């Protein structure tokens, strides 16, 4: 990190950043404690941000626990990702009025101007993947583009990865390196903490200038380095994305698919929590008079039967084939489609699988 882009501040500094962005009319999204988990929500005052919590994750297991310090980022990623704001679970595409003889079409709503607080580096990479899908291909997703152009990203480095994290393998963390406006590094100093703010864009610099902040010292930067090293070395889960991509091409008929297919519930949780899964379906909702109709977009999943339905039946009828589609898409075909892996190593699909299926273990089984 170049020292001229780094500054030291405390919680009050962050609060004034929050106030500044509020004044500029942004809707601010960030981690909050809700329903027994670190969720994402719109925060209307700074103290709504999750504070003083950590989490515990394992296969099919998640708990939050209060900690004595007032740290804002002392937990790993929760069940939700910022995908839900850039690519909402449900969105009205347009509505139409009239009859089959004559009708008119009205566009749906436009996105808000948003700030994302505490985007972990895996999720930051996930946003970059969504950019490739929705902005950099043959077609452009206009709504996403608008949301994205107005977005302010406040990233946060990850001090305590969970047992399911493997961003060191996917090369997506634990420290955000670029593509943010501001990055926050929360450094615990005994029971207190201070923050190193790093700017990553012109927009970020302009915001920082308006805050009361101090220069950062060499020792403070060293503490940051040590924190990142410690976080990185705490991750035990490992895999080789490029090898996985090759392996999956050769194992389409492997008998292990039957085995994992017998355990998988085809419930779709993994695809819902994944920050890069982008599949959607459309639904037409026609009012009882038949004169108005709305077309909605909603998240869909390759684990659903309807997903592959064509007249005459479902292409992927068995759970085995659905799990295979998910994993081969995510870890292999994604490269052909978008030039990267579809996995950013956040571990959500492992934590939130209700029967504790672990994508990396399944990969290892295929390799055997």
């Amino acid at each position, binding site marked *: 990190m170049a020292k001229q882009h780094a500054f030291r501040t405390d919680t009050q500094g962050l609060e004034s950043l929050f106030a500044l962005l509020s004044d500029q009319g942004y809707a601010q999204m960030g981690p909050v404690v*809700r*329903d*027994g*988990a670190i*969720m994402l929500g719109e925060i209307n005052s700074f103290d709504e941000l999750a504070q003083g919590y950590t989490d515990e994750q394992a296969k*099919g*297991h*998640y*708990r939050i626990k209060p900690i004595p310090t007032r740290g804002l980022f002392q937990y790993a990623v*929760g*069940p*939700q990702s910022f995908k*839900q704001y850039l690519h909402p*679970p*449900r969105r009205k595409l347009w509505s139409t009025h009239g009859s089959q003889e004559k009708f008119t079409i009205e566009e749906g709503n436009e996105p808000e101007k948003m700030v994302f607080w505490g985007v972990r580096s895996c999720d930051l990479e996930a946003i970059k993947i969504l950019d490739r899908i929705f902005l950099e291909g043959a077609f452009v997703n206009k709504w996403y583009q608008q949301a994205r152009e107005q977005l302010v990203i406040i990233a946060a480095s990850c001090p305590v990865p969970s047992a399911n994290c493997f961003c060191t393998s996917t090369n997506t963390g634990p420290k955000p390196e670029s593509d943010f406006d501001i990055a926050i590094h929360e450094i615990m100093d005994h029971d207190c903490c201070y923050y190193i703010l790093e700017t990553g864009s012109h927009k970020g610099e302009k915001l920082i200038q308006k805050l009361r902040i101090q220069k950062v010292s060499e020792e403070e930067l060293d503490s940051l380095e040590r924190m990142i090293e410690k976080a990185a070395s705490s991750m035990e889960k490992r895999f080789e994305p490029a090898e996985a991509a090759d392996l999956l091409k050769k194992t389409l008929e492997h008998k292990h698919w039957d085995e994992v297919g*017998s*355990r*998988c*519930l*085809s*419930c*779709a*949780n993994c695809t*819902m*929590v994944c920050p890069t899964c982008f599949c959607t379906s459309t*639904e*037409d*909702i*026609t*009012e*009882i*008079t*038949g004169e108005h109709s709305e077309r909605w977009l*909603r*998240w869909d*999943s390759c*684990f*659903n*039967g*309807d997903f592959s339905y064509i007249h005459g039946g479902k292409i992927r*009828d068995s*759970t085995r084939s659905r799990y295979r589609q998910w994993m081969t898409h995510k870890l292999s075909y994604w490269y052909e489609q978008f030039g990267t892996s579809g996995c950013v190593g956040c571990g959500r699909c492992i*934590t*939130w*699988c*209700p*029967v*504790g299926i672990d994508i990396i273990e399944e990969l290892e089984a295929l390799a055997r």
Partner: protein
Amino acid sequence: MKKKKLAVWKFASCDGCQLSILDCEDELLTLAAQIEIAYFPEATKTVIEGPYDISLVEGSITTAHDAIRILEVRKNSKLLISIGACATSGGIQALRNYVKVSEYINAVYARPEYIDTLETSTAIADHVKVDYELRGCPINKYQLLEVLSSFLHGKKPSIPDHSVCLECKLNGNPCVAVSRNLPCLGPVTQAGCGALCPHYHRGCFGCYGPKENPNTEALALYLTQNVVDNHTMLRLFRNFNAASPSFSKESKNYEKQ
């Protein structure tokens, strides 16, 4: 255009599903303007002769008399839609299917001879051809409107058959199985309720019956190994959709403790 004639029929049930029609407070008058309510005794004395364009059938078949009556309903209906868990899988009263009803009646009734009842409670589709089944205990009134509107206008109803889990995530709940170690039938249950129970911090208990492609076996195995005892597992599958084939089959695996 001539209005389509709607009839609402009741068999063994709690009336909740047909009440859903009257619970469409915001849409009731619009609905009534689009459709002729030709037979709906819970709401009107008016009886207009059949045949009916659309018949909504609530309740399960539990008496010999009803087994005949449903044939008449079918004959009189162009389109027959069964609504609710009772009509689509036998409902809570299908719990009788797992005990010996005759002995049971003798034991409890002073005058068993007055009681006309069959050994089992069965779904409408077990007796006649059903054109569409709307699940739920109770049905979701918005889904009912969607089905009615779709059949009025020739659309395929947007009633997905995926898991409750998907709806759970769309609605922004954290999974209660993972975060609270609760037994949840969401992964094998069809969506439709809006993932209510997880939102209220409890596990799903299967109001909408099995989802498409349910892996009840894997879920039950995981839950009995990690979360609940066999008896609780049995009771979870023996609820409002006890007689739906996959739940019924799975529950039998846990009959012996």
